[in-house]
């Protein structure tokens, strides 16, 4: 049993009129790639800055590698940060930027040079060591910021929206590179992001935050397939949420009366009662112009209202009875050809086990 590298215990941070971080507690394990995910203003950046020691006067305990960070200033903490603006010092060369953190803490000059060289090689910036930041592109500046933090050999690397300033292509490339880097160095990364794709593709575990609180912590797959609440389900990817009322529970599952679907039986662990939402991902639905032959499938008859074409897939919106709107992801294969026309009558169906019952 390994002990956590970071323990967050009942951490709260209030600003006048707002609770930025609201009684948050969780652990992060060594070598984990951990993401704090949430919409802007959810407190994720504040929490990261509290770990770094840049935000003080909060309550609760932050324990890094067994040491309580209470009263430890930012410059004495065993964590380093990559800032959203990168904050690469404009008046220093790349080499001096990377060496700065070693120089100010009194590391001997003959030790600084090789460590800086090593850090720059790690981010493939060795050839640009003598350039000034204004001669670098955004992506290169980010690499410098990374090298500058990593050269300090922190126990935890904190990244604040590191990819938000990059264009789409470069962002995708850097996602892979960050994940690779994390595996090579083998230290804990905590990344703050509002981009669910970024979190899903890079992180081992994700904490979804909203209004200062953590709503769910899970691995990417679990978070996507088994969200605990409507909020998480809606924030991670797209999902159909169908209003329903529970009418009974049996061995086969929970029986509900759902809007536009009538009586459906959904397999469910545990109990459910009252008003719930049935949640089903758009890619679990299939479209057909005939009623499904299997009567175990849940299905709804409707009319195609809109088709959004994305090349490999199309997002199809189907209007069903009772004003139920279903989003369906359709692979653009031969079966789909000719089917996807506005106004066409179709059947949308899916397997009951792909349905989640969400009570919150």
């Amino acid at each position, binding site marked *: 049993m390994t002990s956590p590298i970071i323990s967050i215990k009942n951490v709260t941070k209030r600003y006048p009129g707002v609770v930025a971080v609201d009684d948050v507690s969780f652990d992060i394990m060594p070598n984990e790639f951990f993401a704090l995910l949430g919409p802007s203003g959810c407190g994720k950046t504040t929490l990261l800055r509290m770990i770094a020691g840049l935000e003080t006067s909060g309550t609760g305990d932050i324990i890094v590698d067994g040491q309580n960070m209470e009263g430890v*200033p930012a410059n004495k903490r065993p964590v*380093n940060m990559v800032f959203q*603006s990168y904050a690469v*010092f404009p*008046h220093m060369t790349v080499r001096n930027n990377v060496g700065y953190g070693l120089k100010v803490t009194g590391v001997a000059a003959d030790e600084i040079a090789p460590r800086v060289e090593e850090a720059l090689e790690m981010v493939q910036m060795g050839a640009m060591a003598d350039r000034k930041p204004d001669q670098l592109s955004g992506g290169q500046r980010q690499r410098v910021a990374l090298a500058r933090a990593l050269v300090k050999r922190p126990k935890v690397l904190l990244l604040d929206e590191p990819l938000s300033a990059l264009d789409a292509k470069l962002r995708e490339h850097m996602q892979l590179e960050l994940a690779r880097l994390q595996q090579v160095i083998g230290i804990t990364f905590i990344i703050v992001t509002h981009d669910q794709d970024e979190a899903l593709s890079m992180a081992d575990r994700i904490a979804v935050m909203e209004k200062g609180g953590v709503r769910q912590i899970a691995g990417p797959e679990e978070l996507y397939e088994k969200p605990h609440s409507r909020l998480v389900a809606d924030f991670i990817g797209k999902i159909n949420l169908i209003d329903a009322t529970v009418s009974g529970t049996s061995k086969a599952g929970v029986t509900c009366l759902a809007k536009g679907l009538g009586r459906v039986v959904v397999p469910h662990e545990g109990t459910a009662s009252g008003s719930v939402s049935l949640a089903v991902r758009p890619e679990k639905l299939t479209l057909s112009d005939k009623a499904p032959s299997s009567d175990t499938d849940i299905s709804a008859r409707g009319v195609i209202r809109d088709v959004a074409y994305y090349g490999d897939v199309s997002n199809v919106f189907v209007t069903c009875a009772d004003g139920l709107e279903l989003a369906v992801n359709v692979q653009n294969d031969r079966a789909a050809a000719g089917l996807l026309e506005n106004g066409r009558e179709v059947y949308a169906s899916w397997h009951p086990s792909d349905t989640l019952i969400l009570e919150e």
Partner: protein
Amino acid sequence: MARRKSTRGPLDYGKSPWLILFGLVTFILLYAPIAQLIAFSFNDSKRNIVWRGFTTKYYAKAWNDASLVEAFVNSMTIAVMCTVVATIIGTATALWLWRFRFPAKSAVEGVMVLPIVIPEICMGVAVLVLYSRVGNWMRGFETGPIHWWNELFSVWPLNLGAITAAHIAFSFPFVAVVVRARLAGFNREFEEASKDLGASEWQTFWNVVLPFMLPGVIAGALLSFTLSLDDFVITFFTAGPETNTFPVKVYSLVRRGVSPDINAASTVLIIITLVATIIAMRMQAPSKIEG
């Protein structure tokens, strides 16, 4: 085809011959007196009217005029003392206004720039009134135990203290404004990054904040240097009989007619001011600010 007028945009005034001519005339009217002043400093004639040939003898004459040189040395000394003190006070003020939040901050900022907008003549009178009060008060010590105090302040360069203090008072807000403008472009994350990387508050100041604001500090220093060097009005009100500055001296000489040695001395002053201003502008160039 006939309506060519409409093809010119509102900012294409460079294409209009009349506007070019107007600009040229303005330019000449502004700079001809200065050009003439410099040209006639080399004129081999006692009067500034007709060109009689090239000479540098008036530079020598100005150099040998003990009272003119003394005034010049006084001016330079005051300017240097003023620059050092005004730069320190101005920079400290700018840092204080940038760094801290306190009640009535905007009021403080407004009051701080008052010396920039107050008419110089008013500043001059105000300083004169203040000094005469202080003078009366200090005369009370003439026979007392701290008599040495008055004697001390009659020794050069401390006898320039009164003028220097007045110069500091009106020039430090300029330094503060320039440095403050520079600091407005400072990204707080630089400071946080420095601390995150292990630097103390002081290390962060010396290694990150100071290098960033240095161009503003130098520009402000040179600005206060030129302001002090050529100030006439406030100096005129605060200068005693023993303490002449160059502009005041030139004024007293000119009343007896302009002689070429004044031209020569003025030319030297123009060059010093010009060099300081060029350096100040270079320091503030946009490319440097972006850093």
